[in-house]
């Protein structure tokens, strides 16, 4: 349960609901009110909500207005870790996006962002080992922390499957032929307060069994080192440290549950299972 205690429950009273086209799609810190008020043509601010102005009636105009706001905030140092990657804004995966926005801006607006993760597995049973990466020091989110062999955000305009194959190559040098053997196995969600805002995430998780002689090879500089960790060490690490970034800790707990390394004899079993896939905290339509 250590991992679930890393972030206290979110106090939503500190946030305004972010509304686009009458749909609740995110959360903005109340402390950003003044920065929002500087753009009266873009945002209408109410007591418990901030809405994109009705005049911004389509995907293009909303995306352009948001790009302008984020560019100004970036200039002012409010948005850090610019990625040059556009993420969709919607209430659920696959729904038509109401707008798109730079990835670095998504936590400022508490936007639901999607990701794809791969558990790289070697062996099975008591001899199961997992390929674990260490995030580069320059990563904008969770630098230096332990990570999966492959994981990435899910940007606009690419299927999850194509993104997985692309990330496999960029992050670990896994060829497409092997990457396509990955099996979708679960979904995990998180809603946590991070320095920059609210991180709301939904992650598609895959298991990929790799040959014993496979060696990952990072191509994009985002991972500094890989290690092949025995499953018992993974369990010890999750029980005793916060070395894994939180979203990845969830993916690993999910793996330990699905593969039977955690079972009903663990007194926290039901709470662990329940903590992996909490529904996203948006108002119903």
């Amino acid at each position, binding site marked *: 349960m250590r991992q679930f205690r890393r972030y206290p429950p979110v106090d939503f009273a500190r946030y305004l609901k972010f509304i686009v086209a009458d749909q609740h799609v995110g959360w903005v810190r109340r402390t950003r009110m003044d920065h929002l008020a500087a753009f009266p043509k873009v945002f209408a601010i109410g007591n418990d909500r901030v809405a994109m102005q009705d005049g911004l009636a389509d995907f293009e105009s909303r995306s352009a207005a948001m790009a302008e706001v984020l560019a100004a905030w970036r200039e002012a140092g409010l948005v850090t870790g610019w990625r040059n990657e556009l993420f969709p804004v919607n209430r*659920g*995966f*696959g729904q038509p996006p109401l707008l798109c926005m730079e990835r670095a801006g998504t936590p400022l607006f508490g936007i639901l962002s999607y990701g*794809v993760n791969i558990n790289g597995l070697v062996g099975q049973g008591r001899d199961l080992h997992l390929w674990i990466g260490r995030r580069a020091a320059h990563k904008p989110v969770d630098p230096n922390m332990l990570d999966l062999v492959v994981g990435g955000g899910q940007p606009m305009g690419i*299927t*999850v*499957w194509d993104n997985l194959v692309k990330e496999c190559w960029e992050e670990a040098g896994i060829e497409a032929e092997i990457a396509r053997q990955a*099996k*979708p*196995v*679960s*979904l995990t*969600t998180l809603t946590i307060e991070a320095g920059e805002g609210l991180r709301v995430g*939904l992650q*598609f998780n895959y298991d990929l069994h790799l040959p014993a002689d496979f060696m990952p090879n990072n191509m994009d500089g985002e991972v500094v080192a890989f290690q092949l960790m025995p499953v018992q060490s993974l369990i010890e690490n999750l029980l005793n440290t916060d070395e894994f970034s939180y979203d990845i800790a969830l993916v690993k707990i999910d793996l330990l*549950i*699905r*593969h*039977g390394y*955690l*079972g*009903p*004899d663990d*007194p926290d*079993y*039901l*709470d662990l*299972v*329940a903590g*992996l*896939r*909490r*529904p*996203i905290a948006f108002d119903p339509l």
Partner: protein
Amino acid sequence: MSFLERLHHCTISDLTGFRPWSIGKAQIGWLRDDVADTLRRYPSVFAVGDDAVVLQSHLADFDHRTAAVGEVVRALAELGIVQGWRNESFAVVADYGQPPLLRLERAAVPVFGVRAYGVHMNGYVRDGERIKLWVGQRAPDRQIEPGKLDNLVAGGVPFGLDPMTNLVKECAEEAGIEEAMARRAIPVGAMSYRMLHQGFLRQDTLFLYDLELPADFLPTNIDGEIASFRLMELEEVAAILSDSEAFKFNVAPVVIDFLVRHGYFKPDQPGYADLAIGLSAFQTPR
């Protein structure tokens, strides 16, 4: 019916018409209003209020609680409220893993709306890259959901057994699986739900297991609870789930979870995320 609707088919959120009942500070279950009012006849056991029912505090230990509630249950059976006596008792606990507060005849579990624990096992066979699932058909004389499709092995966890020990016992009784093979089953998750069933509130927590079986394995039902078994392609399983109510109400979500974990559904398919999150509706223990 979509897979997602199939999931929500077995949840209830409106508890109008039910009253919570407690032992000390721990809420143990939900009583239908007419049952709660009937309990006014046993004031030495239950303190019945209009909004809540509390077990009398002088029943301070396991033995006293079991004896006193047991007498009430026998009286309710004579009144026809508790039906289908099983001669099998379940542990009543405040929370999973905590010491039992009393033991209760299984037939009274839904009447008192207390949480019951069960085990469900997906028995499957690998055929190269493909997976096939063993599906049982419940005997026509079963009290609950006769004739419906079921997991290879499933059963309630009776008093005094842990889930894995119970699974091994059920494997032998329901499918003729020997202990050495049964112990290879791995726990893969849990599901909890609260639903209306035959007019009572059922609160179940199911511990889920997968067991990979050899291609030449043939299940044999020993206890008469399952009429027949079939090894099904996952496509057929999915079609039955989406087109019919042939699966037992609480087996449908177990099988949907199996299909998700084994990669039958793909994230790029419409509705995948809603379905996979939808399973979490069954993962809240309280």
